């Protein structure tokens, strides 16, 4: 299945070598209704459709499992919306919304085994959720009290990476380590790595280098990018002339495009991709074809560069609604379940808000902590000097030193 020759594009005929602009855009955009190269198990209308290749990775996804995925997505969307609101109310400096990308993130995250490692960009709140990171642990980054509160090694979820594409090389290196430590192969101990990035990042040198290194070292890494169509204001055609998943062929590993708003397809395809990696057939490139339904961040104003019509079209392909419809129609799930999830999500949002507004400011010497593993005389001296300076104010009646960890 993973022979790269199977994935190479057919030899182009002469006219194909110089596609028109319309041809390029068609290749980038035309699959949103389920083109031939788009893996889809659940249509936007909520109908479960068969897929001869990937059904085998979804056989255990019964009604209970589907309810679990629905709950994940609703809860994640709810605290994401609360993050936006907290920023608007001045409680957060910024929020990075994931609205519309819940299926792409929950599907991929729920495909991971506990021993697998994930490297996020900065929008992967849904993946964080699946790794057991409490949503409140994300808040420090956006409130400005820390750069990430969780232990990346314990959680098997790296810190958010903000510099675009950097993490693709870091993930590749981690995966090389998995291979060097003989964690690739058959059996329950086998490991894989997944790396999250976006369509914009695919232009970065680090992503190219990650692909090269992963290929030549057979690294067990799934390069999973959410093509949400927009890199701040730049549409995908600013980054590429070919559908991005096809780039994998040039590096010698499989690339596949999945409906990123279809949580079942994302889960099945990621399971397959991770399995390929765990058993020594990595790396794999997965393009989750989705849409950024909100702004790039709360600092961004998308009305300056994209049309509202586009958003309206994508609303019809909402990742959560199609699961709800399927649960009702094909599994006979009643209102009680949906009301329960709604109530749970409201409680989560309330807890999220409560935690946020009560976060203590960091102590004034927080910035001198943990700069080095073995300390630094320079930093130590600056810390002492600054604390003495700070105390000179306290003795004059200024506010006392704040709390913090």
């Amino acid at each position, binding site marked *: 299945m993973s022979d790269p020759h199977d994935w190479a594009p057919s030899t182009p005929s002469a006219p194909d070598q110089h596609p028109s602009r319309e041809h390029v855009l068609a290749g980038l955009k035309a699959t949103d209704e389920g083109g031939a190269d788009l893996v889809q198990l659940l249509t936007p209308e909520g109908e479960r459709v068969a897929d001869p290749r990937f059904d085998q990775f979804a056989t255990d996804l019964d009604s209970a499992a589907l309810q679990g995925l629905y709950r994940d997505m609703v809860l994640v969307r709810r605290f994401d919306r609360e993050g936006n609101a907290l920023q608007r109310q001045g409680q957060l400096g910024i929020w990075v919304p994931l609205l519309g990308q819940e299926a792409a993130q929950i599907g991929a995250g729920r495909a991971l085994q506990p021993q697998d490692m994930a490297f996020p960009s*900065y929008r992967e709140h849904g993946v964080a959720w699946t790794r057991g990171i409490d949503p409140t642990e994300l808040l420090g980054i956006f409130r400005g009290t820390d750069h990430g509160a969780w232990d990346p090694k314990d959680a098997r979820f790296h810190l958010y990476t903000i510099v675009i594409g950097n993490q693709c090389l870091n993930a590749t290196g981690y995966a090389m380590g998995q291979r060097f430590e003989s964690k690739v192969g058959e059996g329950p101990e086998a490991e894989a790595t997944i790396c999250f990035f976006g369509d914009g990042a695919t232009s970065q040198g680090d992503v190219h280098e990650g692909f090269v290194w992963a290929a030549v070292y057979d690294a067990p890494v799934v390069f999973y990018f959410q093509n949400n169509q927009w890199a701040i204001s730049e549409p995908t055609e600013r980054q590429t002339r070919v559908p991005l998943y096809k780039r994998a062929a040039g590096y010698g590993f499989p690339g596949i495009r999945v409906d990123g708003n279809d949580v079942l397809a994302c889960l099945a395809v990621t399971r397959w991709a991770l399995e390929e990696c765990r058993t020594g057939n990595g790396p794999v490139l997965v393009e989750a074809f989705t849409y950024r339904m909100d702004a790039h961040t709360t600092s961004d104003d998308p009305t300056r560069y994209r049309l509202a019509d586009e958003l309206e079209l994508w609303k019809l392909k909402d990742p959560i609604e199609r699961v709800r419809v399927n649960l009702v129609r094909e599994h006979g799930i009643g209102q009680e379940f949906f009301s329960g999830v709604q109530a749970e999500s409201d409680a989560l949002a309330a807890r999220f808000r409560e935690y946020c507004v009560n976060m203590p400011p960091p102590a004034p010497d927080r910035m001198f902590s943990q700069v080095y593993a073995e300390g630094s005389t320079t930093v130590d001296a600056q810390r002492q000097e600054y604390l003495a300076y700070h105390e000179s104010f306290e003795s004059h009646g200024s506010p006392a030193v704040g709390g913090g960890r």
Partner: protein
Amino acid sequence: MAVLTMAKALNDGLRAAMERDPKVLVMGEDVGKLGGVFRVTDGLQKDFGEQRVLDTPLAESGIIGTAVGLAIRGFRPVCEIQFDGFVFPGYDQIVSQLAKLHFRSQGKVRMPVVVRIPFGGGIGAVEHHSESPEALFAHVAGLKVVACSNPVDAYWMIQQAISCDDPIIFFEPKRRYWEKAEVDLDATPLPLFASRVARAGSTLTLAGYGPVLRTCLEAATAGEADGHDLEVIDLRTLSPLDLGPVVDSVRRTGRLVVVAEAPSESSVAAEVAARVQELCFHSLEAPVIRVSGFDTPYPPSKCEEDYLPDLDRVLDAVDRSLAW
């Protein structure tokens, strides 16, 4: 006369340079349709077209590397790096190609490239959005490094930088983008590579650049209440340094406090301090004192009030110098 924010002054300066010379290009991430995340390039693509204002793919090495090629071809690219902390993928191209091509080609190839970098903190941002990496560029031979501090300088310095035939790293203090000033569009500007006395005084010399210049001026105002008459110098050019006005000032005041947001070790402020003690040794009444960021990674934004040199820390250094 026009009242302009610094962002608008830069925008007007870019526009004037583009109107004057059809070889001037603007390139970077989101600089076209969006007008840049700080709106510094707002409206330029609409008026000059997509061949002169390029929304580039997301790759800083690509932005700088292709600008080098365009410059070889005779263009004058103005590159925007979206935030200070994102410049490093482009650092290789800046150090290895942009800085050295003139020397390597024995002057046959010129590099009239401007790399605009919004720098510094104070806007409550997440990681990599608040850094002051100017020393990393000032240390590289072949580059010239400048920093504007106000709308008047922003308007003129960007045009002068674009017309310079050497590569220039142009630092813009992002937390001052929205501060306004009257700009005389018919004035004769100060040369680009010159520092400037921003406020005359006699008690002590404060030297700074970029975002802290205003802090220095506020310190001078606050110092009046204590009977101090502080002179403030805007360094403006960080490489080459123009220390003439600083030396003249210190020979009169005998005291110097250098202010910058960047960490202090091996910094531009350190270079100023070293040179001034060489040139003004017999005039100094106190050691040169630096007020700067600390030698730590830029902290989470809730710590930045502690990290950034503010009015109190500048005045504390003034007091320490005067008490010497």
